[in-house]
């Protein structure tokens, strides 16, 4: 062997990196993270309850016709109606209809969406929905109704949802 070759053989020895401490660290970190990880992703739906408020003056601004949809969730189905400051009573009466449950268990959410979709198509500026559930209606049904009323196929229907109890 030449002098240069001998020199290389002595200086370029293969060294293994000791991975054991890194492995130990991983073995501690992973169970710790797994213990505190959450497998449920909690999301939120913004809503509000009706409050007394002073009416805002319209001024000279031109107000686009819009409705506030009302969905009453009854034990027998949905009662859809509408209120508005800018639309006449006759027109509002046209939107008053009941969607009765065909199946005793399931609420007809598809029919509710269709109805709200028609309302939104006629009055695109409308964005508020008041949900008035009956006392016996369970929370899950209210959330399902909110879901279908807020968005339809990524298009917003009535994103502002107000939850109200029945008066009287």
């Amino acid at each position: 062997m030449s002098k240069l070759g001998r020199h290389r053989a002595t200086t370029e020895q293969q060294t293994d990196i000791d991975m054991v401490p890194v492995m130990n660290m991983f073995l501690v970190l992973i169970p710790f993270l797994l213990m505190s990880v959450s497998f449920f992703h909690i999301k939120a739906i913004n809503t509000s309850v009706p409050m007394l408020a002073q009416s805002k003056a319209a001024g000279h601004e031109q107000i686009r016709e819009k409705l506030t949809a009302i969905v009453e969730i009854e034990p027998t189905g949905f009662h859809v109606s509408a209120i508005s400051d800018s639309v006449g009573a006759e027109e509002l009466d046209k939107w008053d209809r009941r969607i009765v449950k065909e199946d005793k268990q399931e609420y007809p959410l598809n029919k509710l969406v269709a109805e709200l979709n028609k309302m939104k198509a006629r009055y695109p500026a409308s964005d508020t929905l008041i949900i008035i559930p009956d006392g016996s209606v369970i929370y899950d049904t209210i959330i399902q109704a909110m879901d279908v009323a807020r968005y339809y196929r990524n298009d917003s229907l009535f994103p502002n949802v107000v939850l109200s109890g029945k008066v009287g």
Partner: protein
Amino acid sequence: MGLSTKTRHSKHFVPPKLQITSMMDMFTIILIFLLFSFSNKPETMSLQKDLKLPESTANLDYKENINLLLSQTSLELEGKVIGTVQNGRIIGLDPQNLKTSTLYERLRSTRESAGDLPGDDSTKPHILFLCDKRLPFKTINSVVKAAAMAGYPNFQFGVLKR
């Protein structure tokens, strides 16, 4: 002949090296995944085992609000039990006289101590409401009303992502 070969092999036995490169790769991937799953979480919260949240298509992340939890057995405000639920009725929360309830008083004092008087910044959500999906609206309504009367009319309903 066979015996001599065996003897020769045992003399030159080299302990095998454990190949941990692939295991290191796996651990690194798991660690990165777990760290990322932590990074987009606003805060952690502990939920009761019997609490069943409704599922929803909502994509909105909840904010750091006042946590109000209503399960089939109890009503909790910021992790402290302030009422018990029996047969769909909340003990200590009279629907006819909500202003005398503990919930109303606690929320009112929270609002006043924060200097956050009713009427200002009402568009901002204030209460993260986690409620069992099996509860009837009759039960929920008293809680929602009491909170609204105390100056918190805006809610975020906590749901599970569908």
